[in-house]
């Protein structure tokens, strides 16, 4: 969470709003912000910290662990048409990579703007592919893994 907050200016620049969600109450979110997050990240977490009491939202998103009573690490990229473009779900032991999240957002935004598609491992500025009949069977000419 703090890692996303630390890169919040990058998300803002891409026109992305972040919503964090856990089963903690809004009161606990407030104290976590005041007592810890604000000391990890300058200014603290600037986005809404949603309370998912009882895992109601997490259940719908397939990330609620009933036995533990918590939402595991799930992250969803939602486009302006309200379509889920990407999903990543990890069990609690390992944190996520916010730079990979930003890369995926940039790739989806590039696709939305141009119709081009991004090959594996694409980084902004690198070669994209233009799908169409001319490309069938010819990807090898354009791109190598």
């Amino acid at each position, binding site marked *: *969470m703090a890692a*996303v907050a630390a890169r919040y200016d990058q*998300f803002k620049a*891409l*026109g*992305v*709003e*972040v*919503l*964090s*969600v*856990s*089963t*903690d109450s*809004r009161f*606990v*979110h*407030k*104290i*976590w*912000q005041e007592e810890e997050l604000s000391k990890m990240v300058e*200014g*603290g977490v*600037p*986005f*809404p*910290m*949603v*309370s*998912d*009491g009882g895992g*109601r*939202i997490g*259940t*719908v*998103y397939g*990330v609620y662990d009933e036995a533990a009573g*918590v*939402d*595991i*690490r*799930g*992250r*969803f*990229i*939602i*486009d*302006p*048409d*309200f*379509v*889920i*473009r990407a*999903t990543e779900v990890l069990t*609690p032991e*390992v*944190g996520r990579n916010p730079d990979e*999240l930003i890369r995926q*957002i940039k790739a989806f*935004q590039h696709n939305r703007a141009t119709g081009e598609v991004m090959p594996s491992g694409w980084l902004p500025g690198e070669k994209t592919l233009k799908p169409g009949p001319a490309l069938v069977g010819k990807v090898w000419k354009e791109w190598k893994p």
Partner: protein
Amino acid sequence: MTIARTGKEAPDFEATAYIQGKGFQNVKLSDYKGQWVVLCFYPGDFTFV
């Protein structure tokens, strides 16, 4: 109940939230329609990673 699936419409929800500088507010996912959103679940406040 609609279940979230990649490539399909995001299930809407409304819930209470803490927003720095604004206090406690209700947040509705569909209020963010028209912009990109990252929805980020995590196991709990005060956890370690």
